[in-house]
């Protein structure tokens, strides 16, 4: 999607929300990508998969899901075609 394999997000907080992580990552990458994932209301668009340690954030607390130090956040556009 962005031709970026990995980006490390630094924060002084012990835990932050995935929404904050995504905003920090976008600034760090310097290439807008959240417009592809979030709608105008800032909610997750259909067709977007966001995982924290392999768990879909829709099953945690959506964009308010908490990310801890060393957690791995994965974003990818899953292919639905076959």
């Amino acid at each position: 999607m962005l031709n970026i394999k990995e980006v490390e997000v630094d924060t002084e907080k012990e835990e932050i929300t995935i929404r904050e992580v995504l905003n920090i990552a976008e600034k760090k990458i310097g290439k807008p990508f959240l417009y592809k994932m979030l709608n105008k209301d800032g909610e997750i668009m259909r067709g977007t998969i966001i995982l924290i340690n392999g768990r879909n954030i829709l099953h945690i607390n959506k964009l308010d899901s908490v990310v801890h130090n060393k957690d791995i956040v994965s974003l990818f556009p899953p292919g639905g075609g076959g």
Partner: protein
Amino acid sequence: MDVACSKLIKIGIDCKIVPMNIRIEDNPEFYDGIDKLNFDVAMDCLDNYTSRFAFEKIVNGGQYLISGGVVNNFGQVITLKKGGSITLSEIYDGLADETIIGVIPQIIMNIASIMTSECVKCITGKPKLLNRFLVIDLENYNFDFIELEGATDG
């Protein structure tokens, strides 16, 4: 389907091929028609999430489900084991079927080859993609693994 079946038989492979003219949908007709099947590995190459979720329901405890999907230059493959993995419907929760999905043939061939290879590994009891996605981006030649959370009651 019948054409694909006859072409495969013409190759002369030593396999029994049983075409089933059943629509893969979330309705009793599909589940009744497929209920008597016994298999070790199921491979999902379907082109919509509704059918994928219906297909997943026929996989029983201990059986492997290899699922592959493609869009544009992207594709992903994952192996799940009923009872030892989260489900496709959990992973792909919130996704809707698109009317038209554009794909390039190369990604289909890549994903299909990997699914076939993974199928052999499942049959021999050594799957490499159990609970982990292999995500392929042919635009940039990126191949990445994404680990999923561990087993649930599935």
